[in-house]
């Protein structure tokens, strides 16, 4: 029997799945690793711990689930969070920790570049919004503030490139992940000289570019032996978690969009064209040639509801956050759509799309004496989803969206999925499964010829549940959303003032 393994190097954990050739899950395991915040705005991970955790989980999965059933592993396909930067020296040894997507140390560099004509041009060429998350900005920051590390760097890798180098000895990055670095020309699929010039690096400081289907080489002999894999197991570079989740959600044709909400969230569409947005609100990442995943990311997804639960939930059992959140959702259902006029702006972590304002802050608005605890709960969820809607709405300026597909732990809570359907007034399908891993499976299966194309592969995905919109709720939500949008715009000056006061503490 044959199987396919997918490795998803996520923000907080690595998730490894084994699928049989029909796409059924044989087994899955995860292993988490910490994010260090050694200074305000810093967000780092230990590359060795990520590697060891990945290796440990892979070994456990193989020895517990795969080898005992005599499965032969055909391929291992990777996906990873976007935007990470890891500097290594000429011996392949990391120079410090990896800088993750949520790191904000380059915020001044980002602000300056974004305002400039070059920034506008680079956004258009590379498809990556000019933001501290972008490796372009992170490397520029290193050039300006960490000169020693910058000078000693042999290559700037992503965490995935590092892991692949550890496993095979080769330095590679797939076009897809590379298209999220702010350094790749997404039309010519070459490193963009102007972006590299701005960051102060030459192309040899970056790993070699290759298609998502590319095999970076064989597993080193030592790992073949310790993992019990043969030299015939093919490694496949794969893509980013975002692109894989889009593929795995089965959203490939016109008129569809996918909404992913975990801690953070995104609304994405797939198309043959880049979305050109004057206001630089969207990303355009490449999946394969002439296939772009475009959309907008939000910082304030499930993490905001979790924040609410930690502060105001009833922890009858210590640390049982899931139980606590279930109870909160149950309470929220006692309030009608619109929370009787209580509105919530969810910008606890500043915001990316569509307003791209790191200084935006959260707020409850419209409180009156009749509001109770459960109104706050519902308003919090509604606020998070209004924000998703505002991304979707701006995307609709460029693409028509008729159907939605949701995935991710927060979006796939049935209460939230129904609310998404109502707010958008569109039918929503939900797949309560790890879409990024499923996307990796589809990529591997396409690679071995099971499907003729990724598009055909994505059509094989059948949604588990469908939610139809309630028009009456939609009308209510729309009225409140209009105020939500106005508040967000009107408060921009106050956001600046309050966040500058907050930064003084």
């Amino acid at each position, binding site marked *: 029997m044959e199987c396919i393994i997918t490795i998803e190097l996520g923000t907080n954990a690595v998730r490894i799945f084994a699928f049989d050739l029909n796409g059924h899950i044989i087994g899955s395991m995860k292993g988490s690793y*910490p994010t260090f915040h050694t200074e305000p705005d810093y967000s780092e991970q*230990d590359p*060795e711990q990520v590697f060891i955790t990945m290796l440990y989980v892979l070994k456990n999965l193989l020895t517990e689930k795969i080898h005992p059933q005599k499965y032969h592993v055909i391929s291992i396909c990777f996906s990873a969070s976007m935007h990470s930067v890891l500097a290594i020296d000429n*011996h392949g040894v990391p120079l410090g920790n990896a800088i993750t997507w949520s790191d904000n140390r380059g915020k001044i560099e980002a602000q300056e570049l974004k305002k400039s004509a070059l920034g506008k041009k680079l956004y258009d060429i590379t498809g990556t919004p000019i933001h501290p998350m972008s490796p372009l900005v992170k490397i520029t920051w290193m050039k300006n503030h960490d000169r020693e590390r910058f000078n000693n760097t042999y290559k700037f890798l992503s965490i995935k490139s590092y892991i692949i180098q550890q496993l095979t000895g080769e330095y590679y990055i797939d076009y897809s992940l590379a298209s999220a670095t702010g350094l790749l020309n997404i039309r010519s699929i070459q490193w963009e000289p102007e972006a590299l010039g701005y960051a102060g690096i030459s192309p040899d400081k970056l790993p070699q570019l290759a298609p998502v289907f590319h095999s970076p080489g064989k597993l080193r002999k*030592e*790992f073949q032996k310790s993992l019990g894999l043969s030299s015939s197991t093919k490694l496949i570079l794969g893509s980013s978690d975002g692109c894989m989740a889009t593929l795995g959600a089965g959203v490939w044709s016109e008129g569809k969009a996918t909404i992913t909400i975990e801690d953070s969230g995104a609304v994405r569409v797939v198309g043959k064209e880049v979305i050109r947005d004057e206001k630089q609100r969207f990303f355009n990442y490449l999946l394969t040639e002439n296939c772009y995943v475009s959309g907008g990311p939000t910082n304030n997804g499930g993490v905001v509801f979790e924040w609410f639960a930690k502060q105001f939930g009833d922890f009858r059992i*210590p640390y049982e956050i899931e139980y606590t959140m279930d109870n909160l959702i149950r309470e929220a259902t006692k309030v009608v759509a619109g929370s009787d006029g209580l509105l919530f702006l969810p910008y606890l972590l500043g915001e990316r799309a569509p307003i791209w304002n790191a200084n935006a802050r959260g707020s409850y608005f419209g409180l009156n004496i009749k509001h109770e605890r459960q109104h706050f709960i519902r308003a919090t969820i509604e606020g998070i989803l209004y924000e998703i809607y505002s991304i979707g709405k701006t995307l609709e300026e460029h693409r028509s969206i008729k159907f939605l597909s949701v995935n991710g732990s927060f979006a796939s809570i049935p209460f939230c999925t129904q609310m998404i359907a109502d707010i958008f007034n569109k039918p929503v399908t939900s797949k309560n499964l790890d879409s990024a891993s499923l996307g990796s499976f589809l990529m591997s299966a396409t690679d071995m010829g099971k499907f003729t194309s990724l598009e055909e592969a994505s059509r094989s995905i059948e949604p588990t549940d469908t939610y139809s919109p309630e028009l009456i709720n939609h009308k209510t939500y729309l009225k409140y959303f209009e105020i939500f949008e106005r508040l967000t715009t009107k408060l921009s000056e106050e956001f600046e003032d309050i966040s500058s006061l907050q930064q003084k503490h």
Partner: protein
Amino acid sequence: MNQFILQQGHSRELQAFPHILEIALKKNTSIQLNSLHATSTTSVRIYFIVDGKFDWIINEQNHILYPGDLALILPGQTFRGEKDILNIGTLSWIHLQIEKLDPHGMSLGSWSHLSKNERLTIGKILLVNNATVLKLTECQTLLLTIREELMNQEIGFMTRINQLIDELFIGIARQSTRQNNSQRDFPQTFMKLEQTLRQNLANQWTVEEMAALTGLGTTTFTEKVKKYTGFSPLNYLINIRISEAIKLLNRQEENVTDIALQTGFYSSQHFSTTFKKLTGYTPSDFRKRNLPQKNNTHE
């Protein structure tokens, strides 16, 4: 409540309890110069505020204590009143001799009725949590009961007194952990634990100790860690040990045995076996892999 003071060497009530250096209740009605100047001792000092408000400097940190607060001063920490004076109010205290362990551990002495492991773990928790001011209202009852037992010497008093001191330490250990952790945010609690583990990686951590630092029982703790990290607590610890070891190996400075001990393996043998099982390389082969003779292409 009448004032009292019993001191080792002066009060015969303490003769059978060499570990109790001092126990007292004091009503301070006037402010006297130099009434609380800086001291540092080898004992554990526990003060409980009955009434009044006290400005104290413990271990170079300013604290204001209110009724119901307990101050815990560990061996070697300095303690003084603001401006060296004792404020007006009522307070009780007990000073206890504690067993010192190398290099900087501590444990309750053999007078304790707790198991050896528990005595060690409590010592470790007090050091790691390093909580100076705790809310622990039952402290007052415990101290007064100890005093009563000392005075009355009724049958069983020797056992009873030591048990009461045990109870006091259990209360302090639990409360210091509770104050450190919200019991709401497991990722945050786990992050703190992970920091502690990294800072003391050479230590032979047990699951009991790790659980105690999070304020959970070992079963719940193990379940939570497994669910959150995907690993059992000890396997997670191996992850950290190996990742740190890789960093040290890459630095090409220390020998493998030193690295093994620094990262908490019993021996270089134990290190090599664990390392190889996980990574496929022995530590020295792994180290060679990254040596300057670069461009070693891998087949």
